């Protein structure tokens, strides 16, 4: 059984997307504990890949392929986790581009990177009103809400979002990250957000810190 856990981990590290499904099924057939497979196999693999990417040893496509590999493994193993057993801890993040803005390349990258690092990302897309974003966050019990804007004209929507969140009293439940080309650390502070980062890797580090996964 340990052998299968190690093989699942190795398959993620080698981003063997094509054979993951078969391997995961085979592991279950041989009696591997699905929780062990997810945590010590797939999870350990993606953490190692994430660390290598952070250290500049891997390219982004490799990280994403490893994440895809992990995901296809989880899809097989998760339904077999016995009901009532201690559920996996996943940190949920809701992402969106604010209202009046349709730019999403940076947001998508952040989503990809967060997913690759084990976060459960719910991406609402572009041009999202504050109300819609907060509604979804409450619905999925998100720990983090991340919004982006590319244009200075749509930036004030971030402040609006934070104001609405304060009115609803959810600031203590959800952390709010802001990002996009015009967003500076100073601006992020001014509007009272929980932070911003210079790039997608920085966003992951910040998110990890906010949910207590800090390395």
């Amino acid at each position, binding site marked *: 059984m340990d052998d299968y856990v190690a093989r699942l981990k190795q398959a993620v590290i080698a981003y063997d997307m094509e054979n993951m499904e078969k391997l995961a099924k085979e592991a279950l057939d041989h009696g591997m504990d699905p929780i062990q497979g997810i945590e010590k196999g797939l999870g350990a693999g993606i953490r190692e890949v994430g660390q290598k990417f952070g250290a500049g040893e891997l390219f982004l496509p490799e990280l994403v392929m490893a994440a895809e590999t992990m995901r296809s493994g989880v899809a097989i193993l998760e339904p077999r986790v016995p009901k009532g057993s201690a559920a996996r801890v996943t940190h949920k993040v809701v992402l969106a581009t604010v209202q009046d803005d349709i730019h999403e390349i940076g947001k998508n990258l952040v989503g990809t990177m967060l997913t690759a690092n084990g976060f459960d990302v719910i991406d609402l897309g572009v041009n999202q009103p504050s109300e819609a974003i907060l509604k979804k966050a409450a619905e999925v019990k998100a720990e983090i809400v991340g919004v982006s804007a590319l244009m200075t004209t749509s930036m004030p929507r971030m402040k609006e979002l934070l104001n609405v969140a304060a009115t609803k009293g959810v600031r203590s439940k959800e952390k709010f990250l802001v990002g996009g080309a015009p967003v500076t650390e100073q601006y992020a502070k001014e509007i009272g957000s929980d932070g911003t980062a210079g790039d997608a*890797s920085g966003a992951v580090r910040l998110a990890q810190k906010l949910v207590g996964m800090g390395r």
Partner: protein
Amino acid sequence: MSGISIRRPYPVLAKEDIGRIHEAALRELERLGVKIGTAKGRSLLARAGARVDEASHVVRIPPALVEEALSHTAKRIVLCGRNPHEDADLDREHVHICNDGNGPVAIDFETGERRPSTAKDLARSALVSNALDNLHVFWPMVTSQDVPAEIRTYVDLRVSFVHTNKHVQFATAVTPENARRLTEMAAAVAGGRDELRKRPIISSVHTSIAPLQHDGGNMDTAFVFGEAGVPVAIFTMPGPGTSGPVTLAGSIVVAAMEFLSGLTMCQLANPGCPVIWGTGIAPLDMKTTTRAGGSPEHGLTGAAVTQIAHAYGVPSLCGGFDATASVPGTQATLEQFASGLSLVLGGADLICGTGLLEDARTLWLEQLFIDDEMVGMIRRIAEGVVVDDAHLALDVIEKVGIGGMFLGQRHTMDHLRDEHFIPKLVDRRSFDLWSADGRKSMEERARAKVRDALARPPPDPLPDEAVRELDRLIEGARASAA
């Protein structure tokens, strides 16, 4: 090592331009002629049918004689490394890079002091060169001024052999005695004179004097190398507006006359010997009176010469990636890019100029890494856009579909390293991350790489026996000078 493959050389001369320049050079070699300082060269040319004026040493060469020499010259020259993996095959389809050489000044890597160069600087420049991705031929970057002048040239070759396994290009052989001793040294390392002829691990650069003169000793030295099968570059460098016409085409004609007369002599002396057309047509800056090695004209004329050389079937050696700037930084980079770009895109067989600033004067070890990055970027441009089924990627476009993401496709990673230039020094991190990491400049990052390179041992260490033989030959030079 294969050099930089050129998919589509970018021409700077039209086909008829090449013909016009060649016709002009032939016509003026017959009408005006060139001054030839070597008695042997004049006598060879006279016997072959050239008109020689022994009073003025001016030789007028008929076109047929030049064409005959061109038909004999070696068509394929391989500048061999001590390790065959380092060979620079001048097959006219690849660009090779050589560092700049013979600098008299070095910036001390530890103290930053600007001072006369030493053997240690030379050794260090070789060690750094070993660590570069795009450096194919080594030219002793500085001279060992801490050893006596009479043995300096030989010590420079010894230090080069000991610290790198690349082909060594030489440019300080000015007497036949120099050439004989350097050839013996190279033979000692290559495993004998026959081995050296088969696999020449050194080559020699011989500069003509613009406009239209060949120094006697210099050419006699070239003949000795030619006899040993050591490739020789006739380096032509009229300065547009000073030692050549201000118009580039005119200066190229002068360069062509110098090259063709030099080549004709070399072929008469040693039929079939390998000859390279060297060129460095850089203008004098008319305000500062410094040579503008980093000018766009320098690379442009080199690309033109390359086209003509290739029409002759000979490889080119072009000065480029030069800078007159005094320190590394924005100006140096701009100058180097301007003088190097057209050479790589034009398919120059060998380009020399990286690593020295102040127009080939001052060694900055950091600059070698910065230049290597620059060459890598231009290399990517030269490789062009590949269009075939794998690169059109229609299956992947369909698989990912509308609004999808290509990051996680295996196709992305399979082609990433070939399709994208991956920087080693250029820092593309965001401001926040760069700032948090100490706001290091390009030069500081290059310094760290120099430090790593200096800590690595030289590849393919020379056998003790060969080192002893090199030392014996150097002692011989010291004794005969005394």
